[in-house]
């Protein structure tokens, strides 16, 4: 089976290289058969990579340890679900996942455009195949997942314990889907520029992909944040870590792109900007993939320094310089057709939106790469921490939220000032009311930025509700339907607009969650013995007793915490810490568990108003004497006897627990972040769904006459 996989990969590389040549030749000479051959190359690439993917997955699910990769990332004791997902916890497997996803989306887009975009599609295919060839070459030569394990071990190393969580298994595929989907508009933009056919057609074909990429990437980022909050022992969801930032940057430029392409579609404006934006998004997507694996920046997520850094840098350099060269040399084809007629128009709102988003991206980019920049400038590596990031991103985020409320109220081309003022009166009143009301509530005024964000979000919510209301009434005036029917019909007829409004609402909710949890969080670090209590905000946390558990993978020590408020029981939390054994043969049978990997199981009570987060750190130092004693007396214990020793230790911990350190966090409105993300996802899906095409509804012949006379229906 190893050979099947390996030959599939080599074949994939050959197909990709052939495909690039065939597509380019076909595009150059206009000979359709070469273009079609190139397209079929993409389809067969997808098929061959699927074979490789399936072979590898099957090996994982079977626990076939003749595969070196399976031996080092999985074990027979790993649950089946995680066995399947262990494939992409490795460098090699994740690269295969990346290029497989790329081949699938490429096949999809080329299938959908097989009869259109006759000049642009072959060039786009060449770009996509070129990327695929790069990744295939990486996988074949530098990071081959189909290596033979010699000798074949009886048991694997097992999956990294931190990754044994459903979120962590969906997180990489979602992120990679986002990255690879962004390469589709990238390729088509490049193709359009190369062939100098930079009109609206390529945008129409790839807009769906850009939106889908944006959705996948956004949801992937949020799932990662949620995992961090509910699984990791540090009690946070975002650390401005380089790899986190690397995934956020293409998402930001992608958001800007989704808005600004509407301008190019409608008015033929901002062509240079759009081309640059989508090319930058593609580069940032590859940059994100690169940062995780290169080790050039100190990061929590780094795969560690690897040999892949240099080739990736090469690819990024090619993509970057190629993009710049393309845009500057095709400037003539990118001349704007329309002009910004008035500063008071939706077009200018979009320009501002783009400016803020790109500004945010720049801030994050600067902060992320600052260690390298400062080393180049001062010779000394220095880094900026979360406070610096917060200082600059928070005001920009605030402006963004305000714009997202203002934008929908302003009409295209040129808005009527009086109408806009009238439309804004209601939402502004709501925002002011929110600000006043919240100031009266406890302590909110102490954090002016958070207060501003709350009223901004109230503003956005009011605008969205108003828009839906007015649209519904407008439709009812013509169609005389009931409110509910009119609302649904309105939304379905104008998916992009109303889906977009829902997304704005979701983002407002999300920002409220972030502002509240960041500004009004309470953290207490306490040391408790059983029977003792601690207090956080209005909660009493009582350490009832210690717990312990044994499994064939780990030793778990923890605590039962009883949470009450005003004397009434609220919840029982059970934070624990799991200790996995190290493979180091020099360690004793008991001690090896406490010198290997450890993970925290957070005791979390999620609520709509506030999350109560607890983590425990048992004092292993106090148990050290017993551990050392057991190691000394039974140095060669394994299997059942080792289990007995551990059971003895666990029993002692439960019976006479030393004081344990607890971290208690009360964080308001954290769940609103995930809730907002869900709303964004729903709105995005709704906007993405193919709706009515406007031209198909009209008969061709009387169209002109009808245009001359009748207004269209809302």
């Amino acid at each position, binding site marked *: 089976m190893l050979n099947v996989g390996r030959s599939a990969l080599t074949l994939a590389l050959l197909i990709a290289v052939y495909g690039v040549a065939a597509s380019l030749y076909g595009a150059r000479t206009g000979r359709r058969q070469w273009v079609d051959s190139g397209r079929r190359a993409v389809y067969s690439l997808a098929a061959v990579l699927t074979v490789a993917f399936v072979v590898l997955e099957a090996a994982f699910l079977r626990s076939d340890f003749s595969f070196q990769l399976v031996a080092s990332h999985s074990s027979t004791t790993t649950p089946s679900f995680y066995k399947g997902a262990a494939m992409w916890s490795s460098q090699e497997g994740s690269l295969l996942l990346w290029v497989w996803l790329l081949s699938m989306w490429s096949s999809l887009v080329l299938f959908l455009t097989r009869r259109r975009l006759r000049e642009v599609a072959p060039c786009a295919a060449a770009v996509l195949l070129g990327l695929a060839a790069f990744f295939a070459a990486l996988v074949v030569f530098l990071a081959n997942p189909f290596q033979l394990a010699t000798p074949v071990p009886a048991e694997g190393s097992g999956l*990294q314990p931190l*990754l044994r969580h459903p979120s962590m298994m969906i997180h990489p595929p979602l992120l990679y889907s986002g990255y690879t989907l962004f390469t589709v508009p990238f390729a088509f933009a490049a193709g359009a520029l190369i062939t100098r056919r930079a009109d609206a057609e390529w945008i129409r074909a790839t807009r769906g992909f850009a939106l889908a990429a944006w959705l996948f990437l956004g949801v992937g980022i949020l799932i990662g944040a949620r995992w961090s909050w509910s699984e990791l022992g540090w009690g946070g969801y975002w650390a401005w870590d380089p790899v986190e930032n690397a995934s956020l940057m293409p998402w930001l430029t992608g958001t800007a792109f989704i808005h600004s392409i509407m301008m190019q579609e409608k008015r033929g404006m901002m062509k240079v900007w759009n081309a640059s934006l989508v090319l930058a998004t593609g580069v940032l997507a590859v940059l994100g993939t690169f940062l995780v694996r290169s080790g050039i920046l100190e990061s929590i997520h780094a795969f*560690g320094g690897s040999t892949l850094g240099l080739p990736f840098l090469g690819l990024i350099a090619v993509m970057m310089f190629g993009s710049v060269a393309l845009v500057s040399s095709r400037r003539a084809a990118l001349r704007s057709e329309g002009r910004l007629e008035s500063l008071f128009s939706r077009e200018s709102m979009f320009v501002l939106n783009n400016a803020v988003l790109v500004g945010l991206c720049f801030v994050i980019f600067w902060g992320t790469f600052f260690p390298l920049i400062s080393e180049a400038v001062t010779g000394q590596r220095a880094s900026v921490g979360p406070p610096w990031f917060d200082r600059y991103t928070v005001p920009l985020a605030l402006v963004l939220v305000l714009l997202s409320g203002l934008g929908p109220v302003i009409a295209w081309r040129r808005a009527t000032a009086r109408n806009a003022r009238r439309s804004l009166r209601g939402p502004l009143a709501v925002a002011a009311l929110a600000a006043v009301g919240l100031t009266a509530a406890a302590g909110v005024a102490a954090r002016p930025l958070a207060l501003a964000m709350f009223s901004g979000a109230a503003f956005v919510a009011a605008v969205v509700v108003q828009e839906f209301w007015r649209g519904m009434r407008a439709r009812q005036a013509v169609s005389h339907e009931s409110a509910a029917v009119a609302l649904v019909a309105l939304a379905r007829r104008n998916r992009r607009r109303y889906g977009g409004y829902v997304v704005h609402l979701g983002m407002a909710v999300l920002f409220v969650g972030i502002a509240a949890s960041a500004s009004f969080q309470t953290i207490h670090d306490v040391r408790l013995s059983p029977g003792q209590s601690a207090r956080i905000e209005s909660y009493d946390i009582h350490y009832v007793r210690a717990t312990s558990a044994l499994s064939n993978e780990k030793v778990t020590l923890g605590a039962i915490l009883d949470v009450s408020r005003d004397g009434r029981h609220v919840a029982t939390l059970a934070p624990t810490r799991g200790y996995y054994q190290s493979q180091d043969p020099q360690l004793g049978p008991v001690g090896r568990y406490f010198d290997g990997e*450890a993970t925290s199981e957070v005791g979390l009570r999620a609520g709509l108003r506030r999350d109560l987060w607890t983590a425990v750190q048992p004092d292993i130092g106090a148990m050290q004497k017993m551990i050392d004693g057991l190691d000394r007396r039974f140095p060669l214990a394994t299997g059942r006897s080792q289990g007995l020793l551990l059971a003895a230790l666990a029993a002692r911990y439960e019976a006479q627990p030393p004081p344990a350190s607890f971290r208690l966090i009360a964080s308001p409105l954290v769940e609103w972040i995930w809730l907002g993300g869900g709303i964004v996802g729903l709105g995005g899906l709704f906007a993405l769904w193919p709706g009515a095409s406007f031209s198909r509804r009209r008969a061709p012949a009387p169209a002109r006459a009808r245009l001359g006379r009748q207004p269209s229906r809302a």
Partner: protein
Amino acid sequence: MEQSARMDPHRKRRLRLFAALTAALLLAGALIYTSFGAASEAKNPSQLAASAVAGRSYQLTGKVVPGYRHEGNVVVFRVRDRAGAASVPVRYTGAVPDPFRAGREVIVTVWKRGAVFVGEKDSLVTKCPSKFSARRS
């Protein structure tokens, strides 16, 4: 007469663009300037021992020396060079990340206080030696 009417909107656009670009440059400049001030230098233990100044924060990177101890909520440990023996003492208060062990690579923000370096609360990051993630407190 037509010429001057067409000049004005064109000029207006130029002015707008100029104003926007200037604003952007100023903001970027402020950003860049403050980043150099707000950053903490990354140093390894031998560099830190040689050139640390009290009152500045540094990002210390190195390996944990075996033989650290917990004193209540404080962890007292030494950090040595990745490839070498020079080490500096660190007193750190706050939650300790899961993978923290002797021999592991850590990153911690410290301030010099007398002969000891005090770790900034919750700034301790431990890097995992193997393929995937390390964890911070």
